[in-house]
């Protein structure tokens, strides 16, 4: 008795091809769709800027020229003919050939600052996301796979961390830590510690459903060890979620960094004022449109860049990538919304204050913080 006939049509009609039985193919197959390429290009641009930005910047990010880079406007009611000595306030310059994105109230070149600060922002984002991803995978997958008491304990832990608000904690801590250098790591660590729990919960749920799937059971029946089942059988099925959350955490981290920098609490390695181009929120309305464009363009474009790259590179199967693509499009929409929001918030804040005489006080506070950062 033979069962050869059952393979009749299972072999393609091409006949026996003398190809080797085993052929290694690249693990990461980068697809060639235009979207992916666009994303990769955007990401590459930011990567390059992050690396060489400081050297291609036309000016030093810290350079100030209070004589030429701002317009000095006499405060009404001061100077000659009044009992008060002349007092000037700085009016930033609009974009020009010399200053592509204009200048800030502190008489600094916005474009140079943008170039110089990209590195720190990206670094914080990636570092925080890496830490958070590792934490969430280890805790979420173990909770889901082992179940029972382990699950109860680890779930409790992640629930506790879910309840910690990231930004207030950052603000409080950032004010206490030594400036420069070390704080960027601390910021990344704090962001990581406050964000891993979300992903951890998702991973736990997913692992729970994977744990009793037939293929995991099949691996157990064939005598596979526990660690190997987790790493080789379960984990690859979680990669779409891990990738998505990595990107999401990167963004959260970048925004959080932007937020505390905006408040003047983060010291950047460059020593530039808060290291961030979002600082020009305090530019005068005359240069605001330019600032707005640059901020929104760079933030919102770097993000889809991440998304596309991330989702495509780590696809285990066709189905997963389809899910990923769907996700990517949904997410980039959401991110555009968020970016728009973020971009407007400081601006609105400024607008409301500009009409207020108290604004000068606010600015003075800002300036003092800033000068302490610089020195």
């Amino acid at each position: 008795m033979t069962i050869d006939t059952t393979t009749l049509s299972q072999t393609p009609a091409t006949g026996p091809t003398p190809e080797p039985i085993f052929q290694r193919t690249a693990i990461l197959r980068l697809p060639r769709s235009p979207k992916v390429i666009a994303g990769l290009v955007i990401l590459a641009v930011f990567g390059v800027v992050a690396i060489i930005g400081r050297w291609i910047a036309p000016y030093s990010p810290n350079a100030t020229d209070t004589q030429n880079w701002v317009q000095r406007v006499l405060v009404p009611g001061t100077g000659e003919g009044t009992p008060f000595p002349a007092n000037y306030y700085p009016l930033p310059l609009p974009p020009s050939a010399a200053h592509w994105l204009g200048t800030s109230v502190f008489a600094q070149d916005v474009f140079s600052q943008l170039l110089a600060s990209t590195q720190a922002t990206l670094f914080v984002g990636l570092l925080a996301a890496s830490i958070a991803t590792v934490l969430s995978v280890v805790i979420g997958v173990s909770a889901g796979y082992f179940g029972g008491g382990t699950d109860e304990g680890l779930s409790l832990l992640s629930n506790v961390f879910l309840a910690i608000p990231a930004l207030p904690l950052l603000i409080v801590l950032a004010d206490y830590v030594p400036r420069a250098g070390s704080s960027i790591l601390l910021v990344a660590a704090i962001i990581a510690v406050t964000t891993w729990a979300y992903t951890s919960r998702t991973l736990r749920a997913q692992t729970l459903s994977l744990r009793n799937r037939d293929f995991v059971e099949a691996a157990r029946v064939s005598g596979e060890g526990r660690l190997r089942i987790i790493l080789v059988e379960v984990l690859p099925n979680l990669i779409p979620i891990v990738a998505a959350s990595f990107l999401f955490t990167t963004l959260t981290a970048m925004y959080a960094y932007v937020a505390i920098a905006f408040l003047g609490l983060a010291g950047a390695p460059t020593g530039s004022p808060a290291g961030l181009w979002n600082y020009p929120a305090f530019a005068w309305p005359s240069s605001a449109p330019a600032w707005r464009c640059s901020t929104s363009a760079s933030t919102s474009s770097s993000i889809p860049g991440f998304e596309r790259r991330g989702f495509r590179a780590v696809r285990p199967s066709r189905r997963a990538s389809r899910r990923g693509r769907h996700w990517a499009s949904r997410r980039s929409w959401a991110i555009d919304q968020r970016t728009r929001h973020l971009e407007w918030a400081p601006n609105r804040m400024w607008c409301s204050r500009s009409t207020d005489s108290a604004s000068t006080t606010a600015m003075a506070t800002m300036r003092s913080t800033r000068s302490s950062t610089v020195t």
Partner: protein
Amino acid sequence: MNVAAAPVLEGRDLTKYFQVRQSRGLFARRLSVHAVENVSVRLEAGKVTAVVGESGAGKSTVARLLARIIRPDSGQVLLDGRPAPGGRPRSYAKQVQMVFQDPFASLNSVHRVRHNLVRPLKIHHVADDNVEGAVADLLRRVALKPPGHFTEKFPHELSGGQRQRVAIARALAVKPRVLIADEPVSMLDVSIRLGVLNLLADLRDKEQLAILYVTHDIASARYLADTVVVMYAGQLVESAPSVELTDNPAHPYTQLLLSAAPDPDRVEPPQLAGRGAPPSLITPPSGCRFHPRCPYAMDICKQQVPPSFAVSPDHIAACWLHAKPAERVASNNGLSTAPVGPLEQDTKKR
């Protein structure tokens, strides 16, 4: 029972209850589902034993107990007459392998066919010197030829039948002596089912594997198996050589199952004796679990779990109808004072 051939794998009085919560919350009452109760199965080398029953009858639980994916609450699994070791050591995995129902779920979609076959080879150090040759050989054994076409494929690139063959190849990789197949063809297209069944038959004939074939399709059990075991609501109701079982069913439930099965040769429409649905396994009926549906139910059926009676050599049925009249009358008259065997007592305590 004759003891001519020693069983390779044997399950003795296997009992498994699953705990479920009645409702949510910390103080929810826990109830137990009587999934499998006092089931004994013997798998012999070169023989296929089929377990037949409706969904919820406990067939898959028996398969999982024998594969030691789950632990029995009581009863023993004997490998070559010795109790199987605790845990799931590799030595056991090397002897007993399992094929799952759904070939779409039992192969990890992120790994190639090659990975699925190489892993068991590596774990058990089978063919360490020539892994690639062994993989090609396995694929040939399950009629996936030429092997080169399949090794680098992902599961989603294969048809259902091909996947199930890969799953079988994976189980065969460690050269096991027992293969437990849990509904291996029920998810496959009709036209390719027979191919997989014939493959199992060949493995039995050529390699002397002991195979447990779990199915709800009594016709396929008759086709493939040497012995058929019928389960109802977690209990074994009848066991006999396959042709004997389908031609002379002794248990009313088996008769019901056979009359309900599609049969194109049937001239008259079938008469179903014992309508209704299987009972809840949380509060199973007392005595014989089939008695509420059984057209021949007697008083004793409601009170005592029937032990296995020999209908003919090799043919046993757990039904009071097959008790010797003396036994039945004695128990029937005595009612509550009827002598209760240790087996029944054990069951009732739970």
